[in-house]
Structure formats: C-alpha cells, structure tokens
C-alpha cells in the first residue's frame, strides 16, 4: 500500500480523472458507466479517509507533501500539500462526489458516460485546486474546473442553459485573467511559482494593493461577492441538480478558500486597506441575498440567492481579521456545503416528480411525503442556522469575531446588520417551507407523489447526519484547522489585534456556548 | 556644368511624364507616358556609370513589361472610365500624404551622410556576371527556382481561364456573384 500512501494526494486527485478517461473511452454503456462512476467516487472518498485519520492536527504546516520539479529547472514544480483548511474542503468534496453521482441515477438519462465523466473531471480539478502549493499548478486546476462545469450546465441544463453556461464562463474567466497577470507578476519577481516563494516576497504597498485587487477579483467573482453575483442565479437555475450541488457545495468555496489561502496572506497591506470595504460589501450581500430570496417564486432560485447571503457571512468572517471570524468562515463553508447541497438535492427530488419548481404550484406536500418533508425541514433549519446545527456554530463565530474586530472600525455596526440577515434567513426559509409543505393540498397534481425512495434516502442521510454532528461537535473540525489558520494568517499578524476581552476568550481552551449546546473546543487537543 | 545639364534633362524626362501617367484620363496615353519615365530612369543608370542596369532597364521594362502593358490595354476592351469626381476631398488627402512623404525623403536624402563608393568608369557587365557565377551563385539559383514557381503559377491561372468557360464553372460563378 505504500505506493498509494506515499503519493496519497496524487491518488486522491487523479483517481477521478482516470475514471473520467475510462468513461469517455471504454465504458460507453449507461448502466456500467453509472456503476463505474459511483465506484470511483466511493474509492476516492475511502482514499481521502486516509487523509482524515493520518492528519496531524498539531501542526499547521503542509502534510503529505509531494514535490517534483516540473518545468523551468524546478522553478515551477508539481507541488501538492495539505493542511487543515485543505483537509476540510477536500473531505467535503470527496463526500459530495458519490452523493452527487447517486443523485443523478434517474435524473440524467442522456449521454450518461459523458455526464459522469465530466462530474469526475470536475472533482479531480477541485481536489487539485485545494492541494496545489505551486501557483501555476493552482491556476491550471482552477481553470480546469471551468470546462467541465461549462458543459455540465450547457449540455444537461435547463431552458436557458446556453446563456447561463456562457455567462458563467465569461464571468469567471474575467476574474481569472487578472489573477493570472498577478501570478505572472509575482513569478517575475519571486523567480519561482512556489507558494512559499510568493509568501517570502516583500512587495511595496502600491504593488500589494494592485495585486490584492487582481487576486481578490477572481475570488470574489467565484464566491460570489455582492455586486459580482449576477451569474450565480442563472447558473444555478439552469444547471442540472448535480451541477447545482457541486456548484453550491464546493465550487463557490473556491472563492473563499482562495481568499484565505492566497489573497490574504500574500498581501497584508491590501487586506488592511480593503477590509472595511469588502466587509461592507459582504454585509450588503448578506442582506441583499436574503431580501431577494424572500420574493423568489422559484424554490431553486430561492436557494441560489440564499447562497449569496450565506457566503456573504463567510467573506465577512474572513475580513473580520480575527481568528474566531476566520475559523467561523471556514466552518460556514462546510455548513453551507452540507445544507445548501442537501437543499439542491431536495429541490431536484421534487422537480423530478413534478417538473416544476414554482412555490405556488405546491402546498401541503407534507401530507403525502412525510419522509421528504421531515428531511426538508431539518435541512431548512440547518440552513437557517438553528442552534444545534452546523450553520449556527459558523454564524455565531463569524458574528462574534466581527463584533470584536478592532481592525474594522465599524465592526459592531456590521455585526448588527449581518444579524438581520440571520433573521431574514429564518423568515424566507420558513415561509417557503410553509407554502410548500404545510396547509391544504389544493393542487390535484400534488396527489400521489412518491415519497423518498431508498436511494434518495441514502443520498440525503449522510448530509443530515453531518449537519447535526458538526452542530454539536464543532471541535472535530476546529481542532484540526486551528494550527493551520494560525499559520496561514501569520503574515497578517492579527493575533495582537484582538481586543483584550476577546483575546482572552480566544485563548481560553473551553468556551461555553450561551445556549448550552454542547461545548465547543478551541485549541485543546485533549477534547478531540 | 555639362553634367548638371544632363541631370536636369534626365530628371525632367522622368518626372514630367510621371505626372502625365497619374493625371491622364486616357489609359493608352498614360501607358505611353510611362515609357518616357522608364527611359529616363535608364538614363540615370547610365549617367551614374551603371551600364548593365541601364541596358537591363531598357530591355526588361521598356522592351518587355511596358510593351506588354500597352498590348494588353489596346487589345482588351477597357471600359471608358466614367467621369470621376475630382473634388478637393479626393485630391487633398493624397496630396498631403505625398507632400509629407516627399518631405521626409527629402530630409533623409539631405541629412544622411551617404556611404558613397567611387563611381566606376569601366564597364560593369563582366564583373556582375563573374559575381553572379561565383559569390552570388546561390541567390542566382534560388531565384531561378522561384521564377519557375511563378511560371507554374502563371500556367495554372491561364489554363484555368480557358477551361473555365467549358463547364459549369461559369454558371457557378454567376450564381456566386449574385447577391
């Protein structure tokens, strides 16, 4: 097994790629194609479990490092590594992989091998993006995500799929090009594409501002941050269910991940200058997304706009520039990946049965589909951030972090405003739930709909379990990421920036949550 | 003194008909005017001691190219050019451009310290022949191959014209030409 464990990151990354190549060339029949895709995705998940169990949480340095000179006398290298932050997002990706594939069992009937191939290719690219520690390698993976997504939306999407696919592609490409220019500029000065060389670079303030802008634009479009979000609803609504799940579950996190991994540590001056502006935009996004979600007549669009709102929280947490906020932001990425991924799956389930997503078409679904209604309710609550669920921990940490932020002059105001987003979130989610599931079943077409099948339960239950688990045992995640966050944020020197009271709270090993929802451990290795 | 006189005469012979070429409405007249210009240029070559070039100029341009042009013009029916408008808007931009080019070239010619060799007084033809067969034998051979390609091309283009009339090509062509 050592030939696998020695290069475990490469195996995890390229196993799905191998699967997709098989699907495009050899396995051309529907049934075997589905099984093969599922098998590959499961195998990938099993491989990634090795990462989970062999990960050393005490250190923030990259682990399982693979480094081979690639080009230009090793100035560009094939350089993979993984710290706690990457670990969490990788686990989310490999977990969603088989779930997504299983969810398309009935939904996709056209060109199945190609579809599965694109899903696996996308997964390989996403994993590579999380592992890459060489900027060129990172950029290659980053861009490689575009093409499979373009085809997933464009070929298997809804009515306006062409428009949505092109819009998605163009938006992301605009951002990427500026980031590429930034990368090349830094390569020119650092003489190496290694991330460490980039970090070691001491750039003048002016350059940092521009470069931060270039990198941040690429990530902000991906997140998407408030004024740049317009591609997201189109992409989500037109994408097939599987595409939406991947998009919401992982792809959007690329933006926040990129900010955390690259934009923030590389350009501290840029962060210091732009943090007030960005956090304001994030709060605008939180409220705007929630308000727009409130009036959506289409369930899927509602979920899409709720993503804008939720990821606003993630960005706010990052740019609160407190350790608590950043950790909360990472937590939000996971929580949002689980709950929104599940929501899109659930929307897909009802769409398969009714071929519509209009809220007004539904009503009283809870009568005929009890299991569906129950799981939908749990997911709705998780998405709202009900205490005891993953989303609560995340939003709590983010708000707390922002409130105590000293670098943000208007941190308290932002916290108050962002809190209204939580309230609005509860309103639009519950209102939607009420209109869809409660009340009388007026529409005869809603009669006799089949409840969740066994396969659909298998798809959804892991997510539901995790929503609870992460809600009550945040330490599982936080212990593993703390050292990594410290390390990544070291260039920002934010530790000293924390106010005395909160600083003490942060260093206190055990923090009692007010609601008594279990203890959330921060920095105590014994409590794992 | 006599050299200056010869130069001025040759210059007039070259430039005045050139204006005629440009401004004449009658294409045959223009062709004949070009004859004088080309002869004038040949005169310059001779005047500068480039005897071989002068003769070549006469043989190739005056004897060959120009006669061909005149034949073509006279044998094919050139449609009478409709009275084109020669308003100021048509004349001024080219005139300004020409004046600018003239200015630049004039400045170049006067400002630059030219690398002038001794004008040879002996006939150059033998020397050129020797050079072509020794030092410059490679370009010489290369040109011959390129000219062969040009001949092949000419053959292709001409042959196709004659064939084109015989099959459906013309109809096809008309179809294409129609908007």
């Amino acid at each position: 097994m050592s030939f696998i464990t020695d290069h475990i990151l490469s195996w995890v990354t390229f196993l799905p790629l191998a699967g997709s190549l098989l699907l495009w060339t050899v396995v051309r029949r529907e049934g075997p194609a589905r099984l093969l895709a599922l098998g590959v995705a499961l195998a990938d998940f099993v491989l990634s479990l090795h990462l989970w169990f062999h990960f050393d949480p005490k250190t923030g340095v990259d682990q399982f490092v693979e480094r081979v000179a690639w080009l230009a006398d090793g100035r560009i290298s094939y350089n993979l590594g993984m710290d706690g932050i990457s670990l969490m997002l990788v686990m989310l990706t490999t977990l969603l992989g088989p779930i997504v594939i299983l969810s398309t069992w009935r939904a996709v009937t056209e060109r199945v091998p190609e579809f599965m191939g694109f899903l696996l290719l996308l997964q390989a690219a996403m994993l590579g993006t999380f592992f890459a520690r060489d900027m060129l390698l990172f950029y290659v993976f980053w861009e490689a995500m575009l093409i499979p997504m373009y085809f997933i939306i464009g070929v298997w999407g809804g009515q306006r799929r062409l428009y949505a696919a092109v819009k998605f592609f163009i938006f992301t490409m605009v951002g990427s090009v500026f980031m590429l220019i930034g990368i090349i500029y830094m390569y020119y000065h650092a003489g190496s594409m290694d991330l460490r060389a980039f970090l070691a670079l001491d750039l003048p303030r002016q350059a940092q501002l521009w470069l931060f802008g270039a990198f941040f634009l690429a990530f902000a479009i991906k997140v998407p941050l408030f004024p740049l979000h317009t591609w997201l609803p189109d992409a989500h609504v037109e994408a097939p269910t599987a595409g939406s799940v991947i998009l919401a579950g992982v792809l959007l996190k690329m933006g926040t991940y990129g900010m955390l991994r690259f934009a923030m540590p590389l350009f501290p001056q840029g962060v210091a200058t732009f943090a007030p502006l960005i956090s304001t935009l994030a709060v605008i996004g939180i409220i705007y997304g929630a308000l727009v979600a409130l009036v959506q007549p289409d369930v899927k669009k509602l979920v899409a706009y709720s993503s804008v709102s939720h990821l606003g929280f993630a960005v706010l947490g990052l740019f609160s520039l407190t350790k608590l906020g950043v950790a909360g932001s990472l937590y939000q990425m996971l929580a949002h990946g689980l709950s929104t991924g599940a929501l899109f799956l659930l929307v897909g389930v009802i769409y398969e049965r009714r071929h519509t997503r209009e809220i007004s078409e539904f009503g009283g679904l809870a009568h005929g589909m009890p299991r569906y209604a129950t799981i939908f309710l749990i997911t709705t609550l998780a998405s709202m951030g009900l205490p005891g669920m993953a989303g609560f921990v995340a939003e709590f940490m983010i708000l707390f972090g922002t409130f105590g932020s000293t670098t943000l002059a208007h941190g308290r105001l932002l916290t108050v405003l962002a809190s209204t987003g939580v309230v609005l979130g509860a309103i639009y989610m519950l209102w939607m739930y009420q209109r869809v599931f409660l009340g009388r079943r007026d529409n005869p077409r809603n009669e006799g709909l089949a409840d969740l099948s066994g396969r659909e339960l298998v798809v959804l239950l892991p997510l539901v379990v995790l929503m609870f688990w992460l809600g009550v045992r945040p330490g599982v995640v936080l212990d593993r990421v703390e050292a990594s966050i410290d390390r990544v944020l070291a260039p920002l020197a934010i530790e000293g920036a924390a106010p005395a009271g909160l600083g003490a709270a942060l260093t206190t090993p055990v923090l009692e949550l007010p609601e008594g929802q279990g203890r959330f451990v921060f920095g105590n290795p014994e409590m794992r | 003194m006599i050299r200056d006189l010869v130069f001025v005469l040759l210059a007039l012979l070259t430039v005045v008909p050139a204006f005629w070429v440009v401004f004449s409405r009658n294409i045959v007249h223009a062709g004949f005017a070009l004859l004088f210009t080309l002869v004038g240029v040949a005169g310059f070559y001779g005047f500068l001691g480039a005897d071989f070039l002068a003769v070549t100029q006469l043989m190739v341009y005056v004897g060959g190219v120009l006669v061909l042009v005149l034949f073509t013009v006279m044998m094919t029916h050139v449609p009478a050019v409709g009275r084109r408008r020669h308003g100021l808007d048509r004349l001024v931009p080219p005139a300004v451009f020409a004046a600018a080019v003239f200015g630049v070239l004039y400045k170049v010619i006067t400002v630059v310290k030219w690398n002038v060799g001794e004008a040879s007084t002996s006939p150059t033809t033998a020397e050129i022949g020797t050079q072509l067969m020794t030092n410059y034998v490679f370009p010489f051979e290369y040109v011959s191959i390129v000219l062969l390609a040009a001949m092949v091309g000419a053959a292709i283009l001409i042959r196709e014209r004659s064939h084109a009339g015989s099959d459906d090509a013309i109809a096809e062509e008309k179809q294409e030409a129609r908007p």
Partner: protein
Amino acid sequence: MELLHVKIPSWGDLQWWLPEAVLCCTFLLALLGDMLARGRRPVVAFAISVAGLLAAGALAIADTHAVAPAGGRAIMGDLMVVDGMAIFFRLLFVFGGLATVLFAWTSEEIMGHRRENKGEFFALTVLMTVAMMVMAEARNVLMLYLAMEGVGLTSYVMAGYMRTSLRSTEASLKYVIFGAVSSAIMLYGLSLLYGMTGSLQFSGIRAVLLGGGAEPFGILVAVVLILAGMSYKIAAVPFHFWCPDVYEGAPTPVAALFSVGPKAAGFALMIRFFYTTFAVGTNAAASNSLIQVINWPLLVSVISAVTMTFGNLVALRQTNVKRMLAYSSIAHVGYLLMGFVLLSEMGLAAILFYLLVYTLMNLGAFFFVVAVNNHLKSEQLEDYKGLGYRMPWAGVMMVVFLGSLTGVPPFAGFVGKLYLFTAVMDRQWFWLVIIAGLNSVISLYYYFRVARVMWLVRPDEGHDSPLRLSWLQYTVLACLAVPTLVLGLYFGAFKDLADAGIRTMAGG
C-alpha cells in the same frame, strides 16, 4: 565589392543545407512527376511531396545535434546561417508543410473538382516550405528580400488556386497588389539602410551602426519602412487588411498554411533582422537598441495592443467560421508582438514557443473547418449546429484547439501566453499585459461560441446523420491535438528548444 563581405560559397556548404536542398529537388521532381502522369494522377506529386517532406524532416532532426558551435554555421558565402533558430523554424515549417499537404489531399475544395493538374498544388506547398526556411536563415539583406518574394510568389498562386471561385480570384489579386506595394515599401527602407551603411550583411550594418556612423533620422525612416513591409507579412494592424479576404477566398487548407507558415517566417525574419542588427546586450534592461531615435518598445507595444484588440473585436462579429479564424489570427499576431517589445532573449524565446503552439492549434482549427466543409459545403456557424454529436472525435479535438487558442489551461495555448505575458512583465509595460488579458476574455467568447454551437445545441431534424472522416484526417488532427494537450502540461523540452534557438542565434 569588398564592402559586401561575401565569401565564395563552397559545395561543402550544401551539407548544412540538406533539408532545403532535398525540398528543392522534391519540388522539381513533383512537377516532373506530375507532367509525366499528364496531370491526371495527382497521387504521384502527392507521394513525392510527402516523401520529400519526410526526408527533409528527418534530415532537419538529424541536424539538431550536428549544429555548429554557438553562433551557428554561416553558409553560402555568409548569406545565410544555420543556427539554433534556423533549425527550430526548419522543423516547424516542415511539420506545417507536411500537415498541409496531407490534409489538402483529403480536401474536397482542392481535390474535388473535375480538373487536371492538382499535383502542382503539392509541389508549390513544398516550394513555399523552402522559401519560408530561407526566410528564417537569411542574414543578408539581398537574401532576405529574395526569400520574402519567394514566399510571396508561391502564396499568390496558391491563393488563387480555385479556378471557379470569384472569391479565390479576388483574394489572389488582392494579395498580389498589396504584397507588391508592401514589398516595395520594404525595399525602399532596405536600400536606404544600404545607402547609409554600405553593407548588405546584417553584421556589417550593425558594425556601422555601432560605430555611430549613421544619421539617426535616416535610420528611423529606414526602420519604419522595413517594419511596415514586415508587418504586412505577419498581418499586423494597420497592414492587415488583405488578411481576412485572402484567407476567406483561398482554399481552406491554403488559408491554414497562410495563417501559420508565412507568419512564422515573418517573425523569424523580424527576430533575426532586428535583433542581430539593432539590439544591444541581451537582457531586458539593455533593450534600448541602437535605434535611439525611436521609442522602439512603445512603437511595438502600441502595434501589438491595437492588433490584438482589433482582431478580437472584429472576430467577435463574424458568423463565418473561416473568417472568424482569419481575424483571430490577426489577434494572435498581436499577442506574438508582445514578445518583441523589449527585444529581450526571454521575449524572443516566448515568440518561438508560441509560434510552435500556434502552428499546432491554428492548423488544427482550420483543418477541422476543411473536414466540415467536405461534408456540409459550408463554413457558416449556423451550419455547425450539433456537429459535435455528428463527428464526436473530431469535435472533441476541435474543442481542444479552441480551448488552446483561447489560452485556457491545461492546453498549450495557455503556456504560450504565459511566457509572452512574462516577457513584458515590466512595470512600464504592465498596461499591455492587462490589455492582452482582457483580449483573452473577448476571444473566449467567440471561440467558445463555436464550441457551444457544436456541442450545446442539438442538430436539426434530418441533419443529424453521423459524418465520417477518413483515417488520414483523423491521424493528422490527432497529431495536432495530442501535442496541443501535452504541451500544456509538459512543455519543458520544447521550451528548451525555443530557448536554445534564441541563445545560439548568431550574433550580429
């Protein structure tokens, strides 16, 4: 005659010029063979051409190791030089020529007509290959001009090769007239330069310039005139206007060759001429050349920016795929010129590498158009509907070419652009990189519009029968697509070749 620095050539020089010599013989043999077959069996000329090109390619590869010490080997009395750069372009041109010959054989446009004398087409392609090689080898003004005329004459003929088409004839005529004008302009510049320096050798010109024995204003005018002539050859704005018409009018395989061959040869010529004559030093800092009167970097960067922007913006509006590719090739010239801004080794090597990549991907895209045209008799984008489902393998390869032309990783075009961008990554020329980046996004739109029509739109009812390509077409397309993909991930060896080409370029 001492001034001309020419030494009497010896027969021994031919051993360094074997690939070209073989191709010259191939040209003659192909013509002869075609004549003997009375023009009825084009396969004779085709076979001879393919064999000749293969032999020349093998010889060129063998030469890669045998090449002379740094500075290359001067041949034919120092009129030409065989150095790393010459060898790089040799391989490139032989490859391009071979691919064109093979694909033209399958093209209905060239082979489909009931007409005799198709064989000459292959012979002419071979000769054009030789002429392009000479362009990359010339180090003497006389040779430079002859080489350019050689490429010019053969291309005029090939552009007008389709007898029946008005478009083709018009294209040829336009090409001839504009070509004549531009070469006259360039000749004027060259003769000014000769008049000022008294030398035809690049090195001789350089020596005089270094000695400060030339009037700056005169040099300025000469350089601008020469640059204008060469810009015509590579179709840079504002000397691009012939390009779309000629590409559209010429048979598509010919347009494919035009879009890569003469352009690459033009760049080779520009690199050798301007670099060995005018550049001082080798690093970016010393790029301010002997032409102090000109702000060379500014001049070239403005041409570059305008060219790429113009090409892309006009390509955006095209509905004919071939015409779209023609305009996009103008845009690529703009990208290539970026490497020329600083006259640095890094930039020139980037040009070489991009030319290699560009040859692969652009030939591929054009050849796909040829294959489609064979079946559909159309180059209109609307007829490409659902084409991906009718010819899946070729369709996938077309996506590879389009992705690479856009410059998306992991395709080779991305790497090419990466190097070009790096080459001008100087604070002063930052704006150029940004413009180039934005241009990539524009190009994304129209390239992927083709991919979109091919794959995301279903074919119309009744027009969804599968289309078959011959094995030869698949082979050639694969030979272009696979490297386009591989070079995007592993380009070390080829980049080294390009670097070596520039580093061992014979100095002035």
